[in-house]
């Protein structure tokens, strides 16, 4: 049989898979030249006429105490001090999740963690503001300090961190699908273990900074802030200041990294706004590095029990997951992160029975929140390590076990989570082939090891924090003869590269070049609505909104061009700055000419495109019942990846060195492959630091011992392994331009891949992060003792 004729292309018939000219190109970042010249303006670089400085007085004596009295009289008397603010003046509670809002701009009544803000000063310069802080006298009555979530639950009868949270639990939930206990009885292999993750901070390089300017005459507030969620910040500011949102404008200057840590409002922002309103002058509050650690909102510390059951052939039959999350002092993103950890056991494998019992507990520590890959990396660590061990129990390769269970396109998980597209198997295959995993695993000399792990992540959420049909992203396109093409969206560029990617997608959709598109982001007044940069949502969401907006512009241009060319509008195509007939190649006109003709007759072309995620119900597919929190984790599509880490363990010092990482990722169509590589390489190092070095330490009173980049150890260039990252061929036909995500999926496999590699190297399975040299030496010592006594 000859199948060749199918290859022939028919003129005028669009190809099955879109052919792109702008999407899929590694163009340099649009904002890079300004950044390399030092001309990019971050919030901390800004000055406004009449601007003064704000500083926050923090409680550094206690982690839990009643505020008896705050005496500001001496501070107010200091020349140069303009105003002092205390928590009582802004008692409205804010929270990123409206149902659990329990944070205030500054502490009201009591402090709940070491470093919490109790008062703030506005002064003519930073030196004066700092001097004033020392003159504020606060009297405390110390309360018992709870630092461990289990102790916190046990002693709740005696000490409550929040009066309205019995048991010191923010929220707890059970999600049960199928019959997990029965499934385990039918399993040939069952393994259960406990896993513990650590207390880690994003350590983005730019400390939070906020500049607020309140105009007493108009009642208008303008806030410039280093944030990744201008909309949520906007909304919280409105709640706390009791100013309608339409009187507040939030603008993001350049943002120096976020990784989730700028994914809530921060006290810098509230204090700047409140002080500015008080004195009618612009106020800037820029954090010192230790204040970044106090503000925290980093990764939740998870104490997990996971149990997996396999049938005799190695197919997963059940997963049982119990998670106690140490969330610190306030709610933050807590409930959401908690339900994410529950949903993350359903993929990237086919799991027919699953049970998650999760709770998020208050302790007297800086609050945990959202951190790159939130809710995913902890259960992923447990699951991928357990499967590695179970493959050994079965006597097969972890690769084989994972391939056997890997999800494919069109999979619906037992919690009704639908996966339209998956190249997960291709990721596993690619990484295994390129690393030589099968040849090396179990065969390297003692001290050297190789470990494999997979992972996945959402490409945006299928729900909002508001119960409404409001689109998650709107993009406004304006085309005229003066500004050219301008894209307006209140999305947040935090260094991930959305400006460039949005320019590429808009250019693709409009048939022009990415250099032609001016992208205006990060301003709630200039831009159309966007939820923010989190949940790896922006490429997909903006892509969909851009396509919709561009279609309307294209239609208008085609109608004008059809008259100019003398053919039907529906037979015209737009590509590479030309509008042409698909059937008569001579009928071509410059795109710009059509724009001119259009503008000269009817004026500027504008259109707005919206993106709303598909609404999917988090239900139990067996009973059909709605399960609490179960729509969290649903996403329009999912990214997948596999990482293989090779490690050297120094048997004398216990130091672990990751020498080589082979990664393969399914990010859908890569809009900008160079940016994808940057995200993946950054993710690997980011997660590697947390696996091996990073940890916030507290003393027994809850005082932070290492709130600095000197004592909190992030990886440097010297720790960088050889990295081979691969973008597997992928195109999600249900997604705009075939895209998925890469910003957070790539952190998922790192912990377990390293831990599995360490096992391969020294035969020790670690279940607690970070894996410090001390722990390695201790384990090696114990292992020798076991050996000698055997």
């Amino acid at each position: 049989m000859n199948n060749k004729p199918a290859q022939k292309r028919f003129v005028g018939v669009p190809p099955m898979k879109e052919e792109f000219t702008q999407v899929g190109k590694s163009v340099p970042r649009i904002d890079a030249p300004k950044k390399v010249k030092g001309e990019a303006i971050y919030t901390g670089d800004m000055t406004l006429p009449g601007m003064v400085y704000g500083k926050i007085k923090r409680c550094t004596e206690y982690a839990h105490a009643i505020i008896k009295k705050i005496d500001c009289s001496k501070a107010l008397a200091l020349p140069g001090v303009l105003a002092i603010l205390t928590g009582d003046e802004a008692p409205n509670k804010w929270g990123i999740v409206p149902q659990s809002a329990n944070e205030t701009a500054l502490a009201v009544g009591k402090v709940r963690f070491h470093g919490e803000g109790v008062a703030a000063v506005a002064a003519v310069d930073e030196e004066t503001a700092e001097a004033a802080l020392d003159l504020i006298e606060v009297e405390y009555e110390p309360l018992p300090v709870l630092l461990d979530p289990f102790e916190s639950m046990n002693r709740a009868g005696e000490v409550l961190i929040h009066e309205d949270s019995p048991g010191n639990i923010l929220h707890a939930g059970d999600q049960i699908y199928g019959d997990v206990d029965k499934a385990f009885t039918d399993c040939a292999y069952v393994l259960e273990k406990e896993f513990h993750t650590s207390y880690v901070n994003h350590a983005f390089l730019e400390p939070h900074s906020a500049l607020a300017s309140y105009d007493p005459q108009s009642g208008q507030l303008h806030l410039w802030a280093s944030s990744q969620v201008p909309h949520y910040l906007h909304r919280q500011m409105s709640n706390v200041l009791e100013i309608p949102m339409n009187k507040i404008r939030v603008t993001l200057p350049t943002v120096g990294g976020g990784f989730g840590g700028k994914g809530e409002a921060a006290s810098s922002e509230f204090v700047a706004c409140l002080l500015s309103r008080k004195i009618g002058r612009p106020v800037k509050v820029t954090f010192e590095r230790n204040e970044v650690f106090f503000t925290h909102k980093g990764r939740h510390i998870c104490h997990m029990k996971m149990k997996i059951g396999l049938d005799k052939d190695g197919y997963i039959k059940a997963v049982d997951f119990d998670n106690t999350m140490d969330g610190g002092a306030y709610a933050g993103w807590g409930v959401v992160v908690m339900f994410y950890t529950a949903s993350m056991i359903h993929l990237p494998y086919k799991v027919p029975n699953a049970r998650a019992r999760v709770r998020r507990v208050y302790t007297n520590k800086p609050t945990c929140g959202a951190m790159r890959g939130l809710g995913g990396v902890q259960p992923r660590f447990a699951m991928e390590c357990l499967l590695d061990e179970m493959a050994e129990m079965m006597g097969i390769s972890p690769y084989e076990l994972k391939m056997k269970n890997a999800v494919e396109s069109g999979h619906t998980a037992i919690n009704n989570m639908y996966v339209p597209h998956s190249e997960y198997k291709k990721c596993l295959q690619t990484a295994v082939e390129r690393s030589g995993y099968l040849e090396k695993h179990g065969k390297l000399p003692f001290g050297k090891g190789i470990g494999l792990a997979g992972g996945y992540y959402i490409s945006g959420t299928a729900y909002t924090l508001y119960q409404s049909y409001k689109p998650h992203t709107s993009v406004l396109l304006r085309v005229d003869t003066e500004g050219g093409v301008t894209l307006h969206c209140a999305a947040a560029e935090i260094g991930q590269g959305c400006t460039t990617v949005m320019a590429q997608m808009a250019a693709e959709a409009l048939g022009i070049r990415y250099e032609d598109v001016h992208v205006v982001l990060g301003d709630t007044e200039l831009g159309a609505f966007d939820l923010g940069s989190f949940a790896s949502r922006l490429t997909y969401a903006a892509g969909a909104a851009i396509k919709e907006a561009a279609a309307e512009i294209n239609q208008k241009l085609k109608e004008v061009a059809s008259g100019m060319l003398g053919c039907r509008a529906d037979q015209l195509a737009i590509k590479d700055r030309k509008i042409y007939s698909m059937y008569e190649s001579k009928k071509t006109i410059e795109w710009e000419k059509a724009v001119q003709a259009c503008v000269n007759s009817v004026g500027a072309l504008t259109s707005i495109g919206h993106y709303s995620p598909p609404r999917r119900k988090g239900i139990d597919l067996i009973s059909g019942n709605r399960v609490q929190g179960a729509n969290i984790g649903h996403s329009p599509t999912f990214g997948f990846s596999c990482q293989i880490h090779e490690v050297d363990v120094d048997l004398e010092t216990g130091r672990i060195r990751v020498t080589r990482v082979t990664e393969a990722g399914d990010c859908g169509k890569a809009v900008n492959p160079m940016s994808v590589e940057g995200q993946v390489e950054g993710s690997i190092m980011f997660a590697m630091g947390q696996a091996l070095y990073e940890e916030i330490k507290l003393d027994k009173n809850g005082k932070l011992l290492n709130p600095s980049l000197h004592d909190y150890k992030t990886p440097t260039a010297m720790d960088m392994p050889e990295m081979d990252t691969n973008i597997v061929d992928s195109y999600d036909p249900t997604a705009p331009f075939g895209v998925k995500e890469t910003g957070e999926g790539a952190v998922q496999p790192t912990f377990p891949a390293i831990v599995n590699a360490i096992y391969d190297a020294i035969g020790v399975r670690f279940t607690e992060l970070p894996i410090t040299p001390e722990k390695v030496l201790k384990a090696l010592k114990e292992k020798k003792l076991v050996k000698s006594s055997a």
Partner: protein
Amino acid sequence: MKQLIELEINGRAYEIPINPRDLLVDVIRKKVGLTGTKKGCGQGDCGACTVLIDGEPVLSCITLAIACQGKKITTIEGLAAADGKLHPIQQSFVDHGAVQCGFCTPGMILTSKALLDKNPKPSEDEIKRGIAGNICRCTGYKKIVEAVSAASETMSAEEVK
């Protein structure tokens, strides 16, 4: 207690009233207005505030401004050519995707320049060692190392300083 000092920054002499305790980073950013020099930690840990003093990379957040009189200070704003053309290291950072959030970038580029001025053809290990005092949380360093390596090639070919 203010006193007037003269600092030479990017080839231009500035007369600046300072306090003897003023740090170089604050003087450069607030008094001179060159905000390209970043402050990431204020304790000499992250490298974002790196400037060149007589060609050596120095952490301006732990350097007293008063101690820099009579020395040549180069900040990131002093690197591009007079016509605005990017220095080969800057261009290489753009081309190789070595810039994400950009906050470490000025310090990273100046540290790289000091390295390449001393060692025009560094090995990968030498580059890693050279930039080890500059923290980047976005890129994972790989594209930065590649950018510095590529810049060293261009600079050797063009004999750029």
